[in-house]
């Protein structure tokens, strides 16, 4: 009825190839942006930002990054935690070495450093595939964590081996450190998320994304039709690692403020982000958001319902939380193996025909 192509005429090629060809979708997208940028900042407090929005936004960037590599290019990676650590330590070194340079620059540079490291660890992907590549990236995960623990230069020789983000401001407003305002850090991360999502979406729709998908679907066939596997795979590793590095940088500098590499960027983090894209949907930008939301928000929601709402003991609630989240993951994957993004796609198909399905 209201969700349809009919009556929405594209008169230019530009209009024809836009991200959201359906008018309703487009307006919904603008509405989400307006709510996110203009309304939510006024409603925030410390709890909402630190427990819900920051982790959701930052994990979304990480999931977008991993989705480019795994979902679009088909290269399984278990090194996400390690690459996030590269982003975090790169920002730390940059922000302590050049305090006068803007945080935006530092975070982008940290993404660049991570992209470089990602390409290095992506080199084996030219020879090995599937499970074997997963093991090679797993090596990256353990190596990077070990490196940041072992070499004191990375944590500026601090006694505890931790890195702490000092206060930095943007336009005079603190965005890292302890004296931040909830709306400021939220908007700072939101800008990164929005740009990441738009860039990733357009990359995956363009020639580069098609090459990645060709490699994913069948690399030999892709090579025969003229896709260079070297550039396609390494560009996927570079761009994916860039986003993962940015998310690691934000995770450390804006969200946590102090990081201990073994605990924060351990193998668990790699699995968490991998689960996000599997549950959200491989090869979908929306899926990255949906997966991040599912795995960040559900535990917090369950905890609040069980402990604050029902007053159950915290240990019982913590165990139940594991069981419920695990159970829901299995249910989701049985009902819809292609993730939440596929549910969304099916819903849109249904909407298109509604109210007269044939």
């Amino acid at each position, binding site marked *: 009825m209201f969700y349809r192509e009919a009556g929405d005429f594209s008169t230019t090629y530009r209009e024809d190839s836009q991200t959201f060809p359906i008018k309703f979708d487009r307006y919904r997208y603008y509405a989400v942006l307006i709510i996110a940028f203009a309304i939510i900042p006024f409603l925030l407090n410390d709890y909402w930002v*630190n427990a819900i929005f920051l982790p959701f936004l930052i994990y979304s960037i990480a999931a977008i990054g991993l989705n480019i590599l795994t979902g679009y290019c088909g290269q399984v990676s278990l090194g996400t935690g390690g690459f996030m650590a590269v982003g975090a330590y790169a920002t730390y070194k940059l922000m302590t070495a050049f305090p006068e340079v803007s945080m935006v620059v530092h975070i982008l540079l940290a993404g660049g450093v991570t992209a470089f490291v990602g390409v290095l660890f992506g080199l084996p992907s030219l020879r090995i595939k599937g499970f074997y590549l997963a093991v090679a990236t797993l090596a990256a995960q353990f190596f990077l964590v070990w490196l940041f623990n072992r070499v004191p230069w990375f944590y500026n020789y601090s006694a505890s081996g931790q890195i*702490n983000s000092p206060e930095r401001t943007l336009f005079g407003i603190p965005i890292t450190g302890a004296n931040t305002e909830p709306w400021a850090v939220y908007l700072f991360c939101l800008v990164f998320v929005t740009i990441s999502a738009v860039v990733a979406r357009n990359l995956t729709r363009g020639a580069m994304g098609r090459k990645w998908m060709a490699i994913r679907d069948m690399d030999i066939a892709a090579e025969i039709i003229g896709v260079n596997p070297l550039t396609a795979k390494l560009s996927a590793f570079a761009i994916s690692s860039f986003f993962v590095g940015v998310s690691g940088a934000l995770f450390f500098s804006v969200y*946590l403020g102090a990081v*201990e590499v*073994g605990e*924060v960027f351990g193998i668990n983090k790699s699995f968490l982000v991998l689960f996000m894209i599997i549950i959200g949907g491989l090869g979908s930008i929306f899926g990255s958001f949906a997966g991040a939301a599912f795995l960040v928000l559900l535990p917090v929601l369950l*905890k609040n319902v069980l402990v604050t709402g029902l007053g159950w003991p*915290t*240990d019982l609630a*913590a165990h139940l939380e594991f069981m419920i989240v695990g159970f829901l993951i299995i249910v989701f994957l049985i009902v819809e193996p292609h993730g939440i993004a596929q549910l969304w796609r099916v819903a849109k198909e249904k909407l298109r025909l509604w109210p007269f399905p044939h």
Partner: protein
Amino acid sequence: MKKKLLSAVIAGFMAATPVMAELTFSALSYRTGAYGNNGIPFADGYLDYFTLLQERDGGIGGESIRVIECETAYNTEKGVECYEATKGEGVLSYSPLSTGITYQLIPKATADGIALHTMGYGRTSAKNGQIFRNVFNFPANYWDGASVGIKHLLDINNGDIKGKKVALVYHNSAYGKEPIRTLEELSKKHGYELMLLPVDHPGQEQKSQWLQIRREKPDYVLMWGWGVMNPVAIQEAVNIRYPMENFIGVWWSGSENDVLPAGDKATGYKALAFHAVNSDFPIFDDIKKYVVDTGKAAGAGDQVGTVLYNRGMYNAMLITEAARKAQEIAGKSNISQADMIKGFEALEMTDARMEELGLGGFGPSFSVSCENHGGDGMVAVAQWDAGAAKWSIVSDFQASDMSVIQPLIDEDSGAFAAENNLSPNCS
């Protein structure tokens, strides 16, 4: 319907509405995960003491007590979530029982003006209260522990450990790395050789570290372990037949849960302690009468009198005594978060007061001041006897070597002050 669901979801994310007519404390505990075996007894002792005050005395100074428990699983992200979720409820003091979470909370709690009491863990240089105004780590900290550990080695070697080899088996995290600087400085002073053996989280795999100990035969092994790492290390030491009396853990590696799995062979294992490790105190009769027998005990109620239970109880006792002090200073019973910091800063634990509380001789007497947030650092050595299944203190409580520690504290707190543009002041 949709609206109802939405509001239910929003209510789910929001914490409960604040109730300000009582004294609110937090318990960032962990009863799950790789550190749960140590987290549970501590949390039980901590909560039971508050329950005791509530049931026996009706609270503190006439105000009833509310404790909000929040499960962190020893995970910093969950710890931050717990802090943010509870701080709006007027929580007077936080004790996260995790050095990692402490490092997260120091800047946040400083900005929010809430007291942090990290008893025997956390950032050691918080002893310098001129810079860490709201962070307290009395009665002892890691550097005191490292120093007294070495002093104990000096004692049993007639004051000379030159040329001896001392290994440190440590949890590869901020917690385990804390004593390294002090041990390095002390090795310069006393001439022993230090060997560092990190164990990665969670610590179930320590074969290579203990193989190295077997090969290099250090004269003494010190351990900074926590959670599942402790019983594994003690078992490995037993397996390589390392002489247990030369194996000394920090106070976090010295509970019943750590030594029991290794059986009889663990006899002789030593651990540092900054309070009594037995349960022969009048307060336990009250705990039994008012808490356990009335079915109000936290957890399963089976941990009463164990080392970590005692430590949790001791922590709660120090916090509530600080709250009493704060009530006295503020001249009202319903104290604010700022009052609580003043209470901590003026806290004085005398032997007479400990006696009154039914804890005579349980811990050292000390007083806190703005310059010294860390107490006197009195530490003793306890030893495990597997036959009697009991820990007992085998040395005197002795003070740490401040000539080595004080410069380190000044240096580390100075670095924090420089990073955060703070200047030391006590006003």
